[in-house]
């Protein structure tokens, strides 16, 4: 009997588990529209600017926001969870972009845990007022 069995728990004939990246959750979104643009607001609490990716490709708008790990939950730091209702999962959601959106002018900002994406409509789609000329 040696101490090594205690140091290496787990069975020898089972492969070791590699911890996979935690699953992502879909953030809740609101979508607003006016004549010039669409606004998409997504709840991404805990996401930081560096971890946010917004990109448009082949008519799909992909939102991805990485959530910083909770300070108290990092291994090795002090702080034992007493109650856990929410795990720090990353956010991911894909939308089909309607035609007539100018993909080059899409803007995004992050404010108080809300990701705000602005999707301007292309010029051709904006309503236009036709002047009536009197002759």
């Amino acid at each position, binding site marked *: 009997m040696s101490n090594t069995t205690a140091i290496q728990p787990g069975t020898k004939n089972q492969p070791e588990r590699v911890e996979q990246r935690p699953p992502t959750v879909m953030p809740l979104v609101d979508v607003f529209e006016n004549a010039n643009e669409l606004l998409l607001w997504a709840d991404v609490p805990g996401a930081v600017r560096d971890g946010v990716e917004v990109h448009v490709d082949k008519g799909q708008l992909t939102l991805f926001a990485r959530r910083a790990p*909770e300070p108290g*939950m990092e291994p090795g730091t002090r702080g034992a969870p007493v109650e856990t209702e929410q795990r720090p999962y990353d956010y991911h959601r894909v939308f089909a972009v309607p035609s007539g959106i100018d993909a080059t002018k899409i803007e995004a900002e992050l404010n108080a845990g809300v990701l705000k994406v602005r999707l301007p409509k292309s010029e051709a789609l904006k309503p236009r007022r036709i002047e009536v000329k009197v002759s």
Partner: protein
Amino acid sequence: MFHRFVDFDRTFNTFDELRRRIDRIWDDYESARPDLGFYASSAWPKVNVFDAGDSLVFRADVPGVAEKDFNITLTPDGLTLSGERKTVVPEGYSVQRQERPAARFSRSWTLPYKVDAERTQATLKDGVLTINLTKAPEAQPRQITVRAQS
């Protein structure tokens, strides 16, 4: 003796794995229907509580709530977090989809320790509210020195 411990440890690992899988079922359920997620969960905002040794930390996901809309009350043995999240529709826009609901919330906890009300802090950052309750001196963990007697 060590072999026994390994068996014991392994049994608990199995339980841990089971718990993780069950947790994941809920997560999948909620993330598959974001429109239901809010209602499917019994409480809003979701709060994690940590015991950081000399303090008790509450962390709540409250995206889009301004700091003035919170009301945090500390009584000798309890903490209440209440507030309101308003739905804001920007001026001149029509609503296409609305999953982020307005909420009036109130959640209370009984505290397991006495806390020092004077040193309580609450901060709001990136849509996460952190309430830091410092434990009262008598509730702080204390290091006991072992003295050898000859």
